């Protein structure tokens, strides 16, 4: 890779760059590699800063407008930093019928946090996801890897308290 492609960003450590290099190398020759590379790189960094997108496009030898187009199309990819804890509220129909709107309203109010946003101290980010496929537990909120089913707005602060 050319030296001019060297990636510089405060959130991206040299260790992360090495991992991204490995990802690019392993996927380089696979057809349709852009989405897997973006996904795995996002897992490494936590989100996709524009510098990372440019770096990937150079590595895969694909115009950065194309890579950028893919990164902005899919809801999985985030171009802005995420909080330390990721709150995913299910906006599936069952959850909606059972009151996820009220639950999300409470989260927004208590933490001054909009959907798609991150709290100022980067403690939480809130996402609305479309159906987690666990409709039996509706309404469902997933914090990091922990799933909370059948919750009500009143329980929100109790649950989130645990995540520092």
């Amino acid at each position, binding site marked *: 890779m050319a030296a001019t492609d060297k990636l510089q960003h405060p959130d991206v450590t040299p260790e992360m760059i090495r991992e991204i290099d490995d990802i690019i190398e392993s996927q380089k020759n696979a*057809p*349709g*590699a*852009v*989405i*897997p590379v*973006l*996904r795995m790189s996002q897992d490494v960094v936590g989100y996709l800063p524009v510098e990372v997108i440019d770096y990937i496009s150079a590595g895969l030898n694909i115009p950065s407008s*194309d890579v950028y*187009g*893919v990164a902005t*199309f*899919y*809801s*999985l*990819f985030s171009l802005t930093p995420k909080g330390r804890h990721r709150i995913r509220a299910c*906006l*599936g*129909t*069952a*959850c*909606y*019928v*059972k*009151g996820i709107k*009220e639950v999300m*309203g*409470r989260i927004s*109010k208590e933490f001054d946090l909009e959907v798609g946003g991150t709290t100022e101290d980067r403690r939480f980010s809130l996402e609305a*996801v*479309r*159906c*987690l*496929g*666990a*409709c*039996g*537990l*509706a309404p*469902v909120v997933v914090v990091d890897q922990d*799933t*909370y*089913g059948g919750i*009500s*707005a*009143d329980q929100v602060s109790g649950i989130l308290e645990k995540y520092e």
Partner: protein
Amino acid sequence: MDQARLHLMLCGGTGCHASGSKSFHEALDAELKNQGLEKEVRVIETGCNGFCALGPVMLVQPEGIFYQQLKADDAAELVESHFLKGRPVQRLMYRDPVSKKTMAHMDEIPFFAHQMIWAMRNKGLIDPESIDEYIARDGYFGMAKALTEMSSEDIIGEIKASGLRGRGGAGFPTGVKWGFAAQAKSDVKYVLCNADEGDPGAFMDRSILEADPHAVLEGMIIAAKAINATQGYIYCRTEYPLAIQRLSLAIEKARDYGLLGEDILGSGFGFDVDIYQGAGAFVCGEETALMRSIEGRRGMPRPRPPFPANKGLWDKPTVLNNVETLANVGQIMLNGGQWYASVGTESSKGTKVFAISGDINNIGLVEVPMGISLRKMIYDIGGGIPNKRKFKAVQLGGPSGGCIPEKYLDTPVDYEEIAKVGAIMGSGGVIVMDEKTCMVDMARFFMDFIQEESCGKCTPCREGTRRILEILEKISEGRGEPGDIETLEELSEVIKSSSLCGLGQTAPNPVLSTLNYFRDEYYAHVYEKRCPAKRCVALLKFTVDPDKCKKCGLCFKACPTGAVQWEKKQPASIDKEKCIQCMACYDACRFDAIE
């Protein structure tokens, strides 16, 4: 292998994992060891059982005793009382919400009793991570027959005879689709499995992938032989990590056993499968969009023809089938098309898996013969509406489906009949709504989904759905004006007739069906500034009706801001200054005293 006296089939699906099946599993293992039963009693983690709301669930075999809502603390009692002394534990059994009876055996529970389990035939019966257990249940036998005894024409003929139609939504005849791809001339062809289940409220694909991943692989291999494809991809949602993990394992095992790869079973036919993880775009469930996405581009649909059977992935002939469709294929090869076609209606054969959720007692996945009535599904299997509330509507077919009112509950479930009453079969989401659901709000909810998920390629879908959403928001915020309802109808018709793909063509359905059956609610919102279901916050007054108030104080306890004033034996009142309109008091009140 040691012979175990009892097999404990513990559900390890996503729903049960979330409600604590792992901690129960650990406690159970420890307790069995404690009592020296670890050789006699075997715990097997299965895929999704379907009865998710009561998770974690466990079936004790061979007795057929069904336990529900198990907690780690229950393990000691279960082991001691049931597995050691032979006295099953009553309090952990299912209690029928209607008859209040305790039911010990799985097959007497109405939720299971009315089902006909074909596509999900292995759920809860095998360890999804064991290929041997799948084979022991006739697994890969249908494939073996197709590969060694049948020609491409024979396979397609059986599928046509079975009457199997695509279970992903549109219901296109599977055999016809395969036939087109078989005729296409090309050196390379592909078989794709659509596991990008995006419909909110439907989770049958996830369940099948988690409980029986080999059934999907078997279906893909048979499809590949039918059209002479050499490579397959499973396009699976990233949101389904457990499904991806089990699929990967299944592919690896199948390769080890020589059931994937070159020269399968010495038949000279070779085929391999890889998983492709989606990145979260509802439109990628549309076949041409899905193919673009695998190619590493934005998942946008393209006009057809050319159809994917001639020009699909990388412009090569491609067949795309849904998970549930493929899960049926192996058994059809084994038992014949006639066997499959013996169940169902004139136009819709076999069984269909539905995900029943919303305001209903028994939430979960059910597989029923085509032609069953909605009423039977909701009341006999689903156990009716909880909290003594009234049924209002049932929403079928996901965001592009429609709401069906009570008067059509006897409609048989079949592709054509459902369409006649204004909904679609879709992937099989059934969401039951009680009287507290506002239909304007529901239409707004679906339109919010669609306008967010529209890929934006064509204007009617991108701009039209946004305008519809704006009008619906206006109406539910109490700013509706005369003419709004008519504009909604006009916009809907234009979007329907001028959009490129299925997403846009069906996008206005939630609006049209609610306008059709619940027009009075729209009128109440627009002309009377009233929400009959009391769901639209802007139209609520938040006052207590002293005549209806039973002075119980539940609203007082629920209020997070201290806006509710209440003392014992006095009716409550609400301080408008402090009220944040969070609905907590409203939801807490059992007597409809808050307006």
